[in-house]
């Protein structure tokens, strides 16, 4: 046989390889149900036939009736054809490698921000670019009204900066990101009935330390420690010095939410540390209520999460509407914490100073708080959120509800 390679044959061969290899690999490789990095279920194969109807079909007319005609004839975005494309891309062979490739090209082309994440030297930062002032004002008003409703319970409000504010000197100002300090000052100026707590100053002092994860949007235990120290005076406890703790390295292979957004493998994975009092920890009983069932733990750390992707969830477990922590600290002080996930790594420190802490996440509660607890039973209430979640969250207003 007389075969002569030509540029045309080469082009045809390469094209055929790509065109065939990708769909065949996609068809052959096992399908995943969940995308851990995207934190969502992947699309299952869209069905044209209504199986139940097809099973009961007796004649050809029934079979025709079992076809989901609406589904395949609609021009809307939820047609079978669109779902098929979604299915295809959700299960495309090497999906995350494709995403890494395109993100790599995007950053080579000079773009620093991908998917709302700004990449610095070996560190990623969730960006605070915009917010709806009406949403923020509504949340602030809800906090104020809640405080007015329980005049006998002292209430506190602490907004936590995110990494963007702490690392702002490394981000060019033309990037157009907002100042979290101005945002916090602005919010603090608008509430009357709660005492505000400044943790930003203390975190800023330590801005060169490892206080925010490189690949996750949360603060590290050290960052949470500085907030805990900053809140001591207002909340009326004496914070332990750093030297009072033994630090346990729980994981050094943590890749968090910001990694999920960029899939940038070049950023060093994070270390998760647990701070244990050297003199011995207070005994704790943590009851997590997911809305239906209660789970009881004898530690604030749910170590099973260390084997999963979302290792930050090892701090008091993943988000739950209601978590109650009882300790053997015998001072009768109790704290109601209305919070987001930043509080999860803060609670291990706070737990040294309270007999009881109840954590409430308003994003998961659709009833009045009085369905679950009586605010008057608590010695203090602390509202604490990070700036980005507080600026975008529309759920906090639900604390105004009753039953």
């Amino acid at each position, binding site marked *: 046989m007389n075969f002569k390679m030509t*540029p045309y044959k080469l082009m045809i061969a390469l094209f055929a390889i790509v065109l065939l290899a990708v769909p065949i690999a996609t068809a052959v490789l096992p399908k995943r149900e969940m995308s851990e990095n995207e934190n969502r279920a992947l699309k299952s194969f869209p069905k044209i036939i209504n199986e139940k109807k097809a099973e009961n079909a007796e004649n050809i007319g029934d079979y025709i009736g079992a076809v989901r005609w609406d589904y395949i004839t609609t021009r809307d975005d939820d047609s079978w054809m669109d779902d098929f494309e979604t299915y295809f891309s959700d299960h495309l062979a090497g999906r995350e490698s494709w995403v890494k490739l395109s993100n790599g090209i995007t950053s080579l*082309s000079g773009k620093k921000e991908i998917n709302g994440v700004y990449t610095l030297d070996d560190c990623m930062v969730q960006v605070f670019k915009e917010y709806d002032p009406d949403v923020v004002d509504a949340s602030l008003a809800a906090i104020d009204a809640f405080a007015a409703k329980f005049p006998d319970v002292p209430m506190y409000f602490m907004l936590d900066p995110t990494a963007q504010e702490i690392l702002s000197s490394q981000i060019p100002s033309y990037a157009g990101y907002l100042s979290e300090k101005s945002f916090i000052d602005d919010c603090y100026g608008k509430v009357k009935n709660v005492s505000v707590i400044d943790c930003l100053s203390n975190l800023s002092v330590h801005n060169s330390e490892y206080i925010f994860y490189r690949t996750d949007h949360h603060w590290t235990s050290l960052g949470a420690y500085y907030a805990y120290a900053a809140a001591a005076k207002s909340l009326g406890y004496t914070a332990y010095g750093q030297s009072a703790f033994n630090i346990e390295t729980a994981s050094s292979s943590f890749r968090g939410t910001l990694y999920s957004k960029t899939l940038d493998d070049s950023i060093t994975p994070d270390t998760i540390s647990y701070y244990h009092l050297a003199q011995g920890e207070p005994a704790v009983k943590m009851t997590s209520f997911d809305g239906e069932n209660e789970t009881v733990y004898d530690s604030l750390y749910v170590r099973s999460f260390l084997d999963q992707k979302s290792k930050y969830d090892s701090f008091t477990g993943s988000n739950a509407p209601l978590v109650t922590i009882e300790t053997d600290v015998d001072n009768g002080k109790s704290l109601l914490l209305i919070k987001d996930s930043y509080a999860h790594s803060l609670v291990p420190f706070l737990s040294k100073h309270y007999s009881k802490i109840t954590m409430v996440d308003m994003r998961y509660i659709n009833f009045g708080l009085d369905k679950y607890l009586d605010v008057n039973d608590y010695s203090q209430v602390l509202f604490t959120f990070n700036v980005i979640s507080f600026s975008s969250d529309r759920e906090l207003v639900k604390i105004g509800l009753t039953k």
Partner: protein
Amino acid sequence: MVFSSLTFLFAFLPITLIIYYLVPFRAKNVVILVSGLIFYAWGEPIYVFAMILSTFIDYTAGRLIDKYDDNPKIRKICLIVSLLMNLGLLATFKYLGFLIDSANAWFGLSIPNPNLPLPIGISFFTFQSMSYTIDLYRRNIRVQKSAVNFMAFVTLFPQIVAGPIVRYEDVQNELDHRTLSEKMLGDGISRFITGLGKKVLIANNIGALWTSVKAMEYSELSAATAWLGILAFTFQIYFDFSGYSDMAIGLGKMMGFNFPENFNYPYMSHSISEFWRRWHITLGAWFRSYVYIPLGGNRKGLPRTLLNLFIVWAVTGIWHGASWNFMLWGVYFGVLIILERLFLGKWLEKLPSFISWLYTFVLVVFGWIMFDGVKANTVDIGDMFSQVFTYIGAMFGANGVLADNFATNALVNYGIIFAVCIFGSSDIMKNIADKIREKKLSVLQYAMPFAQTAVMIASVAYITTSTYNPFLYFNF
């Protein structure tokens, strides 16, 4: 179905090509017909029947025009029926709602708008079918007796959705006899990948900048931001549209067809008339053959010529979309072309070539403000003008700010893409590729397919990433 989707690239295309190459020649047009219907129905499952109906009527009209070759009356009736049907489809689906909205706004009426959807590609396939009956009436072409072949002409999937506007005349021989060769297939693939890269890697990327500028308040734009925004659109529409044409031409080649070229480096033009000979060439040719020349073209004296030009450009404008800003855009070019014909053209020839290029490019860029800078499909003509002038004002510092953080940030983030766009709008790359081919620089000749494959892989990566949605409720 769109070319830049995984369904097309990895399901439709390989299956269609394999079948197409395996079946004997006489069945190839059937493959074209069936694949075309699937391709079209994928995005337009109901209105595919409008297309089938239109094709059926044009085919029948064609057969009758041929059969009653010596009966001018019947021939004329057939032509009129075909035109009425095609233009009727276009008028109903594309312009009815717009006319009702305009009438309601202007005369205080409240005629209900039926809000009909716009079937994909209707502006293209109606124009293509019309070219057949008109040319047949004019006896420029032979009748197509095979219904399958005629339907294959209309449903030929590469060009059905967004052109180039392939006239029957362009492919009549290839419909009956065409050769498939290694060269055609290789060239077609290479052309297709070029188009895919232009659309996915360049147009979509630079388009993001225009999207964010367009969302801003025009009366607050800095001059630099306004320029960067509309330049981003200038490149987006070129790379998007010409990329689409490249993909269509490439796919056509893979199947043995030579479609007409649609773009010829329009941003290198030195006059508006030249720009329009290089931009969307098949559309210009269509209007020339079927509107301008029948109106008398330039054969009936200067005033009539100018009127004809004006009509053609108004129609060209409104063809791009049922909205007054498209009409404005068309008339704007009509006026410029009339001026060039009257005296400007002679001046331009005497100017240094950089000046005439700059004149053309800047005026085209202003045109894009009319084309896409008007927010929402406004029927309020005053509002339309005010948006256009506010934007042009912003470009010249009317808002009192020359540059701002947004512009700096845009330059940092998009600088490299802008450079690629400028490079890609010129014919430098093409000249290099031609050199490589001419001189048979073998190493480079063999490197090109690898480079093209890299572009293909990068494009797939971008298509996939657009569906990567990290749903991080950030540990709510």
